[in-house]
């Protein structure tokens, strides 16, 4: 026993002096940790960008195809979702297709099924496609047909909506009709930014007096995220309704990748063509619609 103690006792003295990690070691350890954390965060953010512009499109495209096919099937079976009221207990179910949107300026293959949204469309509806603000008018109706859509990712239906020029066609196909809207402003082909067209309107003031006025509505405007007046029957003019015009308003985020503002496109109904089973079955455009595509390409 005592021998053990004697042998063990000098052992600590025999080891080389070790005082644990030095101050320098500790600083290096912390700095390396911070560096690695920052690099990792950077890579995660980069991966998030990939997710936003790429992965979300894959999911959204799948949803959009489902909605589009379901709508087409309903049309072929002779059922029109727009025969239901827009609001109320028996309303069009939110998230289901109601119409198909075409914009010749954005290419031959550009088409999106528009889904019925809530009063303000939510993310699950917008992921399926451009969504109708439920309380605004339906396609072709006098007033304002409001549609919201994603700009970057989530199918990005409104990615290139800033490319639209004054007079460009925005076509909304329903079971019964092809509604042809044109971006407001003048002359055709000009930049629609704050470029207005007078809309004949009737306005009612607080005292109930009705006045007629030609109210100017721009083809394109950039507004604050909280500015809901762009969806009014006569955009930006509370208390007014158009005397005869059916308008359409599209909202998306601006600038791209952010939500600090909204880009708004206003268009006006200029024509309509009856839709029928032939066009729905073949997927071809009626001649009048074909002309609109040729006008942009020519």
């Amino acid at each position, binding site marked *: 026993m005592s021998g053990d103690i004697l042998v063990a006792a000098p052992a600590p003295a025999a080891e080389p002096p070790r005082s644990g990690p030095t101050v320098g070691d500790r600083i290096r350890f912390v700095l*390396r*940790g911070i560096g*690695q954390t920052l690099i990792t965060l950077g890579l*995660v953010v980069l*991966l*998030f960008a*990939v*997710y*936003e512009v790429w*992965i979300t499109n894959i999911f959204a495209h799948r949803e959009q195809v489902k909605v589009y096919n379901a709508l087409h099937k309903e049309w072929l079976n002779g059922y029109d979702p727009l025969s239901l009221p827009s609001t109320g207990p028996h309303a069009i179910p939110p998230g289901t297709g109601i119409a198909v949107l075409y914009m010749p300026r954005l290419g031959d293959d550009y088409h999106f099924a528009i889904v019925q949204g809530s*009063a*303000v*469309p939510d*993310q699950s509806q*917008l992921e399926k496609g451009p969504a109708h*603000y439920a*309380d*605004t008018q339906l396609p072709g109706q006098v007033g304002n047909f409001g549609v*919201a*859509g*994603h*700009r*970057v*990712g*989530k199918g990005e239906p*409104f990615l290139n909506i800033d490319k639209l020029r004054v007079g460009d066609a925005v076509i909304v196909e329903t079971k019964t009709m092809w509604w042809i809207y044109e971006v407001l402003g003048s002359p055709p082909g000009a930049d629609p930014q704050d470029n207005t067209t007078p809309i004949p309107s009737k306005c009612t003031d607080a005292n109930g007096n009705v006045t007629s006025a030609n109210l100017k509505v721009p083809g394109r405007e950039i*507004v604050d*995220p*909280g*500015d*809901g*007046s*762009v*969806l*009014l029957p006569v955009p930006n003019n*509370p208390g007014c309704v158009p005397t005869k015009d059916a308008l359409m308003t599209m*909202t*998306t*985020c601006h600038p791209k*990748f*952010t*939500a600090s503002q*909204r880009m*708004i496109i206003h268009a006006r109904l200029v024509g309509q063509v009856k839709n029928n089973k032939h066009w729905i079955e073949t997927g071809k455009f009626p001649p009048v619609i074909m002309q609109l595509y040729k006008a942009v390409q020519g």
Partner: protein
Amino acid sequence: MYVWIWRHLPGPLTVKLLQVLLLIAAVSLLLLFVVFPWIEPHLPISQVTVPEK
């Protein structure tokens, strides 16, 4: 952290590299398909609507 993981991976260099690739793939997939879809609705980046008036 990365050094610690590298030290604790078993096997020779090529096997270690293979495991690293697998780990990166697993973490990426977890982020892309679970974490990002979950946090994204809470971020103020993809709002395209205006409130109704």
